[in-house]
């Protein structure tokens, strides 16, 4: 990858998956009682810290060259720097966890909440303190929304934990449902966007699609936009943006081409069904324009480049798209490839300025492109 000259200040990458070298790296952040619960007195393996069921990818989930000599892909900052940050002139990478992203898929809500706390502390200590280019996400265990809200407020002063991250959905309710509102209240109170990452329903918690449970990874992965559709429609219909007018929402890794036709349909439905949701005061497309951002990867591959641009134009994508690499995953988008697919006059916005707006950053909040890893 090489950095685009179109963005002299350096780019902002909104989806970089940071992993762990080992379980022990995280265990030290769990309270002693939970460590005892995990390690236990009995012989045999400990209680797993991470959900690994889901759908197997026959090629594996990570780019082959991203594995360090020890630990999982994405767990070595020096390698991440060499392969991603420096070649792309990334001045800010928002970290979004590896398999730990699926903490909300765990059956035990108390353990999940303890793990989420440990993951956030581990991120701050191991990653944010090591490199000023990195920003963190507050991962929350959605099983217990009130506990999740407490966890968000616990980091009120930690400005480098820049968003609240929702991964799996442990309930049958999409994320707009009032059961989740304590999370959004805390996010708004502490000035952070909500980010929903792909897989937010279909990893560990069937049903994986609206029509039934997928059998293969190719089905589940193809249909990830369906989960984002469900959550987005739910946010708007439940009036989340009316209840929390300051709320910003980021959809990560669920594509962008489907948004225009979904919003056309949603607007049409609202015109006839407003009576059911009279708290909505605007067209769904207007809520989208005011409150929602979308990451680039994986950018849908239209037969002709201009077809995709046309579709994206309908959602005002030059203001809504934020660059994401998805490093170190198998389907990561190369930055040069992305730049070649988008109009040149979108690049400064998509690769930098839109994310600044989403996160409320000024130029002074971002390191210069020359900044390099300082630790690890």
């Amino acid at each position, binding site marked *: 990858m090489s950095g685009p000259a179109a963005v002299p200040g350096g780019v902002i990458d909104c989806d970089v998956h940071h992993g762990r070298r080992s379980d022990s790296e995280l265990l030290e952040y769990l309270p002693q009682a939970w460590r005892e619960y995990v390690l236990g007195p009995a012989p045999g393996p400990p209680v797993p810290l991470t959900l690994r069921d889901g759908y197997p990818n026959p090629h594996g989930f990570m780019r082959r060259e991203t594995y360090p000599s020890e630990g999982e892909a994405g767990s070595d900052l020096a390698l991440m720097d060499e392969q991603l940050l420096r070649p792309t002139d990334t001045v800010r990478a928002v970290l979004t966890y590896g398999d730990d992203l699926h903490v909300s898929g765990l059956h035990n809500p108390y353990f999940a909440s303890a793990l989420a706390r440990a993951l956030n502390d581990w991120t701050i200590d191991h990653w944010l303190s090591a490199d000023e280019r990195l920003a963190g996400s507050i991962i929350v265990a959605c099983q217990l929304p009130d506990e999740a809200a407490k966890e968000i407020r616990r980091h009120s002063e930690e400005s480098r934990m820049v968003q609240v991250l929702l991964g799996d959905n442990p309930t049958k309710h999409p994320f707009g449902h009032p059961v989740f509102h304590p999370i959004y209240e805390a996010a708004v109170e502490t000035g952070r966007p909500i980010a929903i990452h792909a897989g937010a329903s279909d990893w560990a918690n069937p049903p994986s699609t609206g029509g039934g449970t997928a059998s293969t990874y190719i089905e589940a992965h193809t249909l990830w936009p369906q989960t984002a559709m469900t959550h987005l429609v739910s946010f708007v219909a439940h009036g989340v943006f009316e209840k929390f007018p300051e709320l910003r929402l980021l959809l990560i890794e669920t594509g962008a081409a489907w948004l225009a036709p979904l919003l056309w349909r949603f607007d049409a439905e609202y015109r006839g069904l*407003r009576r059911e949701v009279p*708290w909505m005061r605007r067209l769904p497309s207007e809520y989208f324009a005011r409150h929602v951002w979308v990451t680039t990867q994986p950018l849908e591959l239209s037969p002709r480049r201009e077809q995709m641009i046309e579709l994206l134009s309908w959602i005002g994508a030059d203001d809504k798209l934020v660059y994401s690499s998805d490093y170190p995953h198998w389907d990561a988008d190369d930055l040069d490839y992305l730049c070649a697919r988008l109009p040149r006059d979108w690049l400064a916005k998509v690769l930098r300025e839109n994310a600044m707006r989403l996160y409320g950053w000024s130029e002074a909040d971002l390191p210069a492109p020359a900044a390099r890893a300082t630790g690890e």
Partner: protein
Amino acid sequence: VSSQDVGPVEAFPEGEVRVVSAGRREVGVTCWLGQLYAMRNVCPHQRGPVCRGWLTPRLTATAPGTMELRDEAPVIACPWHGWEFDLRSGRALSDERYALRTYPVRVENGRVLVEL
């Protein structure tokens, strides 16, 4: 503008929509809280017979999950796709860019006159 006599005031009972011919147009006339309203019987969406739909007070909300009625706001919903219009302005509740054609109405000597 021409005034069209569409009948005696008793022909337009409170809360009901009567569709009458006014020149070459079909016009719906109704009385809501003692006030007369008139509108063309054509929905701006797909030209459906909007005045054959449902006349109700406006359903509204002060917060998500709540429901309230605003009696002072008469709303007609098209029977085809449910588009709702506030009779006072003619505007669609969901999108002010769309509106029913409405007409001024007055009563003279017990007769209802619609100004077309």
